[in-house]
């Protein structure tokens, strides 16, 4: 048995930037977020929002600056960081031989939650996103919008003190964007720190406690 420190959701990114060779992906940027708050990253395509999220989540080493979560350097290799950060950045790989509900039960079980109520939790989350009727589908049997909702369900099915979302609104219609907005708000109310890149003004207005404008390198 091993023990993992439970980190608070304090996100501090101080002057973090990323340059590979001569190409600057992200100019030095500051992000600060406290538990229960939602920081929205705005900026044109290519300004470095995804790079910034990857740095905050410890998936990418910044060239300059430092990023911490709960006072610990953001490095995905640390179990405490992995335990703290739930992220939807890019496309998570799914199991082609598991149905949607199986995925949620699998994730739920690996976090040591009560097995007796695991199915109910998975179905409830799918219900909140309006995809409970798809519970016995395989991932390859979903439309692009349904796949996005499923990815959000995967992200929200694990516990996290920091939630990082890269354009959660993509491929969703207006109604589903409102559903997702409510779900994110619920996570923030429950004490999670949310940092998300978003191009939807309505979602930004509804959720953002602060906005960081990411300036493109050129």
């Amino acid at each position: 048995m091993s023990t993992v420190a439970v980190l608070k959701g304090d996100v501090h990114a101080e002057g973090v930037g990323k340059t590979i060779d001569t190409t600057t992906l992200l100019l030095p940027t500051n992000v600060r977020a406290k538990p229960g708050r939602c920081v929205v990253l705005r900026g044109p395509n290519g300004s470095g929002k995804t790079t910034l999220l990857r740095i905050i989540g410890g998936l990418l080493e910044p060239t300059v600056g430092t990023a911490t979560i709960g006072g610990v350097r953001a490095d995905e290799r640390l179990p405490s960081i992995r335990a703290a950060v739930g992220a939807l950045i890019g496309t998570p790989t799914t199991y082609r031989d598991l149905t949607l509900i199986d995925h949620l039960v699998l994730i739920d079980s690996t976090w040591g939650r009560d097995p007796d109520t695991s199915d109910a939790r998975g179905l409830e989350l799918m219900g909140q996103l309006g995809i409970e009727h798809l519970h016995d589908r395989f991932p390859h049997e979903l439309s692009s919008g349904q796949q996005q909702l499923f990815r959000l369900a995967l992200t929200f099915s694990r516990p996290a003190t920091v939630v990082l979302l890269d354009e959660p609104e993509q491929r969703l219609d207006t109604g589903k964007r409102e559903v997702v907005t409510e779900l994110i708000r619920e996570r923030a109310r429950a004490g999670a720190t949310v940092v998300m890149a978003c191009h939807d003004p309505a979602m930004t207005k509804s959720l953002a406690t602060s906005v960081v404008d990411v300036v493109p390198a050129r």
Partner: protein
Amino acid sequence: MPTPEHQPASDAPAVLEIDDEDLIGQADWVIGGDAGRKGRRQAWYAAYVATLGAGAYGFPVVQAAVQTTDPAWLRAQLSSPLAVGILGLSIVAVFWSLYSAGNFRGPVVPPLPWIDHVVGTPMDRALTVRRWWRLSVGSTMFAGALTGATLGAGVAFAGLMPWYAAGLAIVIGAAVGRASGALWLWGQVRSWPGPDRGPRLLYRPRDALRALHAESLRTHSANTSTIGGSVLAGNLRTARLQLARPVRHARRARLRASGPFRVIVRRDLLGMRRLPSTLWSGLAFTVIAATVLVWAVVNPAAPMLAITVGLVPAYLGYGAWAEGLRLQADNAGTPSLLGISPRAEASAHLVAPTALMLLALLAGVAIASRVEPVPATVAIQVPLLLAVLTGGHLLAAFRGTPPGAILRSGSGPVLLILWYLSPGLVVIAVGSLGLWLVRSTDTGTMWAIALAVAVVGFGFVRVQSLTDAHRI
């Protein structure tokens, strides 16, 4: 637009006369230029290299294996029902493999421009795609004949069989190759819906070629490009996904929630239930492996080569059941979803394939013990085999990306092949050496255990290093 003088005089349909051979020749030159002739030369060169390889390596190895074994005992073993059964099973496995391969990549795969501009014309399809069929069926016949020649000549040279048996082996090998080619083509025909796709096409190749749908040819051609590109780039995940069929079995079965470790094991078992092809192919390889390995371990007179040969299907069988491990490696570098450490997750993914392989080996030992006494060293050899297979598959799943040296023009392709084969070669080398050490002395047993532990340990080091490696 047809002019009035081209309109038929009566209601009878107009007839268009086409010199297929002439048109194909012209199209061949326009689309491919000199490529056809170059392609044929490359095929002959490949056959030449394969023949040299069989003569230089295959024949001496078979001959040495036969000569280092007691001839009377080996003759009795080779003519036993068990040996005949294994031979029959192996041939059936070859047939099944090629028929299955035909679903994704059949023997007839012309380039896309040829499919669009020539196969789509009214010319006889049996002629427009004939070249690729002849090349493929020629290759399978040649491979069968060469295998027959290598085995037959090796055995005959060692004096175990008369010389004419070598000729017979060549003929049988070529016949198996021809039948495999027919099944391969049949698999391709049946990969697309159609009215007449029955077994008569197996002995009527021209009809089978005419039954090939243009869209099916296009799909197979695209599959070939994608798989070929991913294999050359060392991206096995893309190749695997391209080959994989959509899962539809056991939709109503549910993953039962439980503890973190156990739910991963259950995931793998559910995966096998939903992908029965992996379960059955793993079982087929494992039965062959268990038969050969147990025979080699139980009989002190059995050649060491039998262990080496038996480790090949053992590696493939274990691998068929280790899909969960590969899926974990696919996820390396993505944000963490599971609340379990990478090492613990990998350990959980090893449970199902290891348990199934253990069952197969124990069943083999139990059957063997009814015929003759089983040496006590089996108690060490079986766990040793399992450990080596476990470590080898950790290395295979978490091998990561190939070294940059594969891009070198000269040695690159050889390095890429070695990179692909390296986990299997580790299993075969360490497994063979380990079992030989156990057979030899007590000190050897200690060395064998140390080797197996080292392979497993290195496998887990790869799990951690690949999980961390993506962070740049």
